[in-house]
Structures are given as structure tokens and as C-alpha cells.
């Protein structure tokens, strides 16, 4: 096992900005560990996204399958395992999102290896991987040493600069195998740009609506968000 494998992320079929942040973090770590850097993307029809994911990767692994969207933990884990098998890394970085928060810990347990989530700093001390993350609501920073043959880390977004690196050396397309039907079934999804408002009280929703209107007037946020706020006003009542 050697190398740093960086997972990118897609949002609405486009490369998520966090992907290039992960690439920057991974490149620095790979250099410090003196190991190669590889990348991976999980999704459907990734050619266009892959062209934007220039992180200076020796190889970019594309794990593609129509069943990978919408997201399910089971499919994401199976796809990630395929990329890890192909890259054989010693460290794997993931952007810290609501999705990775669900499936990466289960992947760690399946691989029986060390994971630290929501990291804001990554360092190599010899062959040791030393990471830091905020704890106790951000009042304290914890420093951990991650153990295991494949050390997993999710990285907080917005910490590292999103910067394109050198072009990818090679692209390795892997057809994702759809896992057998499990005990968790996705029924449907309800989309909204302001999902967090679901739990808000009426007064806070009014504050957010006014904010959304004013932001829109200044061209910062589009009309879609105002509409989404209204949708969630109804959802909030239901809940």
C-alpha cells in the first residue's frame, strides 16, 4: 500500500469546488510522504467532470454506474472499495459532506482501519499521518495519529485553497458493480436549496426569507433560493 488517493465530489453533475481543495491537500501530503498522488470520482457519466478535476494525479480512477445517483451509502461504499482496490493507497482523503459522513465511517469499519473526520490540517511525520480537527464545538483542536494500512481522512471543505494542478496522467475507467439488494431502500428524495430551514421556527424562517430576498436583490443569490425557502416553509409546518 502506497500513495495518497483523493476522492472528488460532484454536485448536480458538475465538479464540486471541494474536489480541488482535496487535490491540493492530497498533493502536499503525497509530497511529504514521498508517495504518488491519485484521484477518484464516483458517479454517472463522469467524462466532463473528470476533465475539470486536474489535481496533478498520476492516475484518475472513474467509478461509473447509473445506480450511483441518487446517492445510497451501499453503492458509494462498493464504488469506493473498487477505487481503493485499484489504487492501493496508504492514505485516502474525502471531502467532509453529509454523504461521506454516512458512508466513510462504515467503510472504515469494513476495512478495519483508522479514520478521522472533519480534519482541518494534515501532516506527515515520517510515515505517521498526523491530523487535526476542531472538537468541543470548535473551542478545542484535537491532534490525532491515524493508524492502519489504509488511513482514511475526511477533510473540512473551505480550509484548503481550491487550485487546479497539473493535468491527469492517465484515466482508469471502472464500471461500478451494483451491490445486491440490501435492507435499506431509497423511496424518493425531496430537494430544496435550504434544507436546514426544515427545523427552523416560523420567526427564523421569516428572517431567512427576508435575507434571501435582499441577497437576491443584490444579485448574490438567485430567485430559486427564495422559492426553495417558501417550499420549506410548508415542510417546516408539516414537521
Amino acid at each position, binding site marked *: 500500500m502506497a500513495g495518497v488517493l483523493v476522492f472528488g465530489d460532484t454536485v448536480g453533475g458538475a465538479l464540486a469546488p471541494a474536489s480541488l481543495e482535496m487535490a491540493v491537500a492530497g498533493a502536499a501530503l503525497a509530497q511529504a510522504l514521498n508517495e504518488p498522488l491519485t484521484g477518484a470520482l464516483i458517479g454517472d457519466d463522469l467524462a466532463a467532470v473528470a476533465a475539470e478535476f486536474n489535481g496533478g494525479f498520476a492516475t484518475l480512477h472513474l467509478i461509473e454506474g447509473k445506480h450511483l445517483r441518487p446517492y445510497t*451509502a451501499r453503492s458509494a461504499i462498493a464504488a469506493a472499495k473498487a477505487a481503493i482496490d485499484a489504487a492501493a493507497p496508504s492514505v485516502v482523503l474525502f471531502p467532509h459532506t*453529509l454523504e461521506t459522513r454516512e458512508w466513510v465511517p462504515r467503510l*472504515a*469499519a469494513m476495512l478495519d482501519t483508522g479514520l478521522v473526520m472533519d480534519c482541518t490540517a494534515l501532516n506527515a511525520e515520517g510515515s505517521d499521518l498526523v491530523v487535526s*480537527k476542531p472538537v468541543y464545538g470548535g473551542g478545542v483542536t*484535537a491532534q490525532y495519529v491515524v493508524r492502519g494500512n489504509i488511513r482514511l481522512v475526511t477533510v473540512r471543505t473551505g480550509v484548503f485553497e481550491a487550485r487546479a494542478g497539473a493535468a491527469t496522467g492517465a484515466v482508469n475507467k471502472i464500471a461500478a458493480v451494483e451491490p445486491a439488494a440490501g435492507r435499506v431502500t431509497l423511496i424518493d428524495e425531496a430537494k430544496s436549496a435550504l434544507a436546514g430551514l426544515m427545523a427552523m421556527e416560523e420567526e427564523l424562517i421569516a428572517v431567512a426569507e427576508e435575507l434571501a430576498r435582499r441577497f437576491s436583490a443584490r444579485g448574490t443569490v438567485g430567485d430559486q433560493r427564495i422559492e426553495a425557502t417558501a417550499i420549506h416553509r410548508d415542510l417546516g409546518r408539516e414537521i
Partner: protein
Amino acid sequence: MNIIVTVKQVADPNIPPAHIQLDPDGKRIISPFGVPPVINGYDANALEEAIRLKEKHGGKITAVCLGDDSSRESLKYAVAMGADTAILINDPDLVNGDSATVGRALAAAIKKIGGCDLVLCGRQASDTDGGQVLHWIAEALDLPTVVPVTKIEAVEGQQLTVHRLIEDGYQRIKVELPALLGVSSEINEARHPSVRGTMAAGRAMIAGWKAADIGLAAQTPKVELRELQIQVRTTKAELIPGSTGAAQGAALADKLHELGLI
């Protein structure tokens, strides 16, 4: 429905950052005098949901905690809220373990208790913000998981329909029992214990188990805490005026614009 709720005792998250103190090793938070540790907030939500399920569908709730002896207080709180029984895993070899160690110990305890239909956990602990223990439990017990759950919509036989929070909305998911759910705070508002419940909790016998009682072999840590460092921060609060939500929203927008943030 037999439900097991995992509980962790944590330093009160309302401790102001300026009052946070570390132990001499720099590896643990010391609660300031007069601010006792509390049950993890997400775990209280999980327990509240278990109580609501029991009220509708019957069954039994067991609260399980891994911690030092002081964690009995959080288990008594769980009993006061409505848990039927409580078990403390109190073993020095486990108490400061990493997520894998804690998760496997809790899984071993759940296995020993037996007959569990549903394991409810908080999505993460408010002290370490780790969010891993529940997945180690699920993997050890081969349980399907859904995290973070914001609503249990329906219980139909051996199936639950739940809402899972995603970045841009939520998913409706059907999960077969037995299962493990990682509960988020949006799901409910945890009740405060009644006087009657508090009195019952005072008389409750809380079983204490060691690693040997649950058949747990020595664990090799996968993550090692090297140190904690208190962050020195300066913060400034300003109340946004306004008699209505809309007026406050407008004033906040003006303020953000004035600061050049939008």
C-alpha cells in the same frame, strides 16, 4: 419493539470556550466546578424517539453507556426520561478507547442483551464530534444503518420509513429491522424528566459490565489522540434589531452588506 439507545456522557456543550480547561495530560476536558457533565444532546434525541416509539408500539428501552463511574448520572437521567433499564460498561481499558474500540464494546453489549429490534444512536457526540461509533456498532452486528435521520415516518411490521438529511433536502428511506439509526436533532425536542421519573431513576439499579462480561478481547487502537489544544478566540456579539422576523432579516442583510460580506 425492543430498542437499545446508546448514551454518552459529555462535557456540557454550553461551557463558554474561555472556561474550558484540560487535564494535565492535555487529553481530556475538565468540567468547570458547578457545571456537571450531561447526556450527549443527540443521544437525548435518540432516547426521546425511542420513548415515542414505545408509547405507540409497546416494547422495552435499554440505555447503554460506555464511560467511567460518573456516567451513571447520565444513565439515571435516561431512566428518568423513560428508559426501562440501563447498563454501564465501565472498564478502564475501554473508557478512553477510540471509536472502533467503543463501537465494538457497545456492539458486544447489545449482543449480550439480545432480542434487539432497533438501535438508536445520536448521529455524533458533541465533545469529539466523531460520528463513527454507531458505524462500528452496525458493522460488528451486521445491521443496516441510516444517518442522519430527521424523522421516523412510519413503522410497518418489520420495516421503518425514515427521512435522511441530504445536502439539498431529504431522502425517504425504507429500512428493514433490526437496524441502527443515527438520529439528528431535527427529529424531536427531548423531554425533560418528570418528578416521578427522577424519583424512579434514583432507585434504579444500573448494571455494570467489564470487557470480560461482554466477551471483548483487547483492541488495537486505530486512532491515537495525541493532544488537545484550547483555541484562543475573541468574539463579539451584536443583537440585530427589528420588531418582526422580516425587519430583523432586512437589518441583518444591511449589516452583512455594510461589512462587505455580501
